[in-house]
């Protein structure tokens, strides 16, 4: 009696899954933004529009008319918010199902090949091989059964998730359903808002308040009152970004609608420009690929106020996740910066992100540009008013320095666990602002960097005035950058000589005591050229290479440059002027 060989069955193919979690999230975001708008109506009907002191027959008729409108709006807001949240969860589930499907496909391909291999071995095999082949077939059949069970579970999970999402849509389709489920239901956001810390609360106090809320209350605030937390120092970055995204989506819908109708005001048009720039900044970052994981780089809208500073706007967008990054850099831009500079600044921090992630051994990184102060940028001949002249003095930098210090304190207070390695990088007039933040208020950073600096503030004469460890105060100055040449040198202090003009000392000079790093362009011009002022963040440049090493805490790899000196017998001497610069790869590419 010979051994009977039973060939294993062919594993079933994995069904296709045609879904796009990103689009599902965009759907959820649109609903959430719309719910915020509806929530505003509910608040209005109960508050500002109520005209409670109005009496008489006409007043009664009015109050009777708006009461149901307010109630309906509140219920609709909660319903829309609920569906948005479920859609977001559905997007997460789809992502998981797609990942599982990919693994199942790989497994199925392997099993198919194994089955085909066994078939060809069995065909014409001598009798003495039969026991061994039968054992191999049994083993393979067992693996096919396991795969089939996994496939069934995957299919069941998909069907369940689809059913749950359809149910979420169906149960609040009509207004009667909305009223039954949410009519008169208190909004969790309202109770949370009642205990919101006042304007003078510290970031630590705000964080304590936030941690004391339920998760339901936190999500409700993000949806119903994004403006109350989106720009509040102490709120965790993920929550600020979520709230600011709701506000941004709502604003874009509102102002674009008004623009389409032809009734948008000049102010609103400017705010719309700022909102669009913020969205473009987010998109620009999300189009980049992480050099290590090859996944899209995530973006976080950490600050969003399109009407700030008389319409110039305030915005900060991070590449990476501020909540969990091991190394964080905050860049502070200078003259000419306003809300509409967001996409330009996004490209810079995206380059810095890529370069830092390309450093050997680096962990998670986040790089954020911060346009959170009123930088000098307007010139009267463009009809924008006149604050461009502010670049000649430190007033705007001093005011900005206070805001920057608050931002950095807030970032520290908002994170859990091990503190991140934090670097502040001030460029151009932004370096003056950063210098003021450090000198005037103290900044909780590990590294302080000045690039292309026209001066770091009149009272900051030495690294010891910054409050940061002197070994961790850095200066990058391109020898052909005329802006970096504007600062005080040696004994000549322009602000003393010229009655207050000038922006302070040169951080690249020997007397200042900073660690100067190489920042020359390999194709630099022969003479000073203002174009060099904008090249500190370019890929493969000395400057970006060194910035990325500093941000990653890889100090030994930073390429030093000799400081500028100012001998009594001559003008400032820059040893970088005559050195041949070198190209440095700053991006790991496949």
């Amino acid at each position, binding site marked *: 009696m010979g051994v009977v060989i039973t060939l294993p069955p062919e594993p079933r193919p994995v069904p296709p899954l045609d879904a796009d979690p990103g689009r599902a999230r965009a759907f959820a975001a*649109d609903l959430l933004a719309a719910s915020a708008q509806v929530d505003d*109506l509910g608040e209005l009907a109960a508050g500002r529009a109520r005209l409670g002191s109005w009496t008489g027959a006409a007043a009664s008729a009015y109050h009777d008319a708006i009461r149901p409108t307010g109630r309906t709006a509140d219920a609709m807001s909660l319903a829309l918010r609920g569906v948005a949240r479920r859609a977001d969860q559905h997007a997460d589930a789809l992502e998981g199902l797609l990942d599982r499907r990919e693994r199942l496909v790989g497994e199925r391909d392997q099993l198919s090949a194994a089955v085909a291999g066994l078939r060809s071995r069995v065909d014409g095999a001598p009798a003495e091989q039969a026991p061994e082949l039968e054992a191999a077939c049994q083993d393979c059949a067992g693996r096919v059964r396991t795969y089939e069970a996994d496939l069934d579970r995957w299919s069941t999970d998909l069907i369940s998730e689809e059913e749950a999402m359809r149910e979420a849509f169906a149960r609040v389709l009509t207004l009667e359903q909305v009223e039954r489920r949410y009519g008169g239901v208190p909004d969790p956001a309202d109770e949370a808002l009642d205990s919101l810390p006042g304007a003078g609360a510290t970031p630590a106090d705000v964080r304590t308040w936030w941690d004391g809320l339920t998760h339901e209350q936190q999500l409700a605030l993000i949806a119903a009152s994004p403006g109350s937390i989106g720009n509040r120092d102490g709120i965790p970055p993920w929550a600020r970004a979520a709230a600011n995204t709701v506000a941004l989506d709502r604003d874009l819908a509102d102002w674009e609608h008004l623009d389409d109708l032809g009734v948008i005001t000049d102010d609103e048009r400017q705010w719309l420009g700022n909102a669009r720039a913020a969205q473009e900044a987010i998109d620009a970052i999300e189009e980049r690929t992480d050099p290590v994981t090859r996944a899209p780089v995530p973006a976080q809208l950490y600050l969003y106020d399109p009407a700030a500073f008389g319409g110039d706007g305030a915005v900060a967008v991070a590449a990476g996740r501020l909540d969990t990054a091991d190394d964080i850099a905050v860049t502070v831009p200078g003259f000419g910066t306003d809300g509409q500079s967001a996409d330009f600044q996004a490209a810079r921090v995206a380059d810095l992100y890529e370069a830092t992630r390309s450093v050997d051994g680096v962990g998670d990184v986040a790089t954020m540009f911060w346009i959170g102060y009123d930088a000098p940028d307007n010139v009267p001949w463009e009809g924008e008013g006149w604050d461009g002249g502010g670049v000649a003095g430190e007033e705007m930098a001093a005011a900005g320095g206070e805001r920057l210090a608050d931002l950095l304190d807030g970032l520290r207070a908002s994170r859990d666990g091990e503190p991140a390695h934090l670097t502040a990088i001030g460029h151009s007039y932004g370096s003056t602002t950063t210098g003021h933040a450090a000198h005037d208020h103290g900044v909780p950073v590990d590294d302080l960097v000045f690039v292309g600096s026209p001066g770091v503030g009149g009272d900051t004469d030495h690294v010891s005035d910054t409050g940061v460890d002197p070994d961790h105060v850095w200066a990058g100055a391109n020898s052909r950058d005329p802006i970096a040449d504007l600062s005080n040198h040696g004994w000549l202090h322009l602000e003393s000589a010229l009655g207050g003009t000038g922006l302070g000392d040169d951080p690249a000079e020997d007397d200042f005591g900073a660690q100067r790093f190489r920042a020359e362009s390999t194709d630099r011009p022969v003479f000073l050229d203002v174009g060099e002022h904008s090249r500190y963040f370019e890929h493969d440049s000395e400057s970006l290479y060194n910035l990325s090493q500093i941000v990653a805490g890889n100090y030994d790899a930073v390429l030093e440059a000799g400081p500028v000196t100012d001998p009594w017998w001559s003008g400032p001497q820059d040893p970088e002027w005559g050195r041949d610069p070198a190209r440095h790869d700053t991006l790991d590419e496949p």
Partner: protein
Amino acid sequence: MDVPLSELATTAHVWDEQHLDLQAAADQVVEAPTSGFTAAVAGAAERFTTTWGRHLTDLAASAESHADGLRETAADLACTDGLVAEGGLALTLQLREIR
């Protein structure tokens, strides 16, 4: 009269703004992308967005109706009090829908 007519006019404008904002919200919901869902869900999503587009448009219309009602009431009260004749153009302009 416990509230000035100007306050009625201002509140009417606030309702006008809500009307516009809610119309924008209605468009946003109608245009929300449903293509990310699987075929088994997309139909339900489209039905939801279409239906809710109507709900939000109706809510927007309510807001506009409150605005119009306030303006009518204010105009009636002003005529009753003879204020239109006295206040002339300024009051008339206040009671007009701006956008």
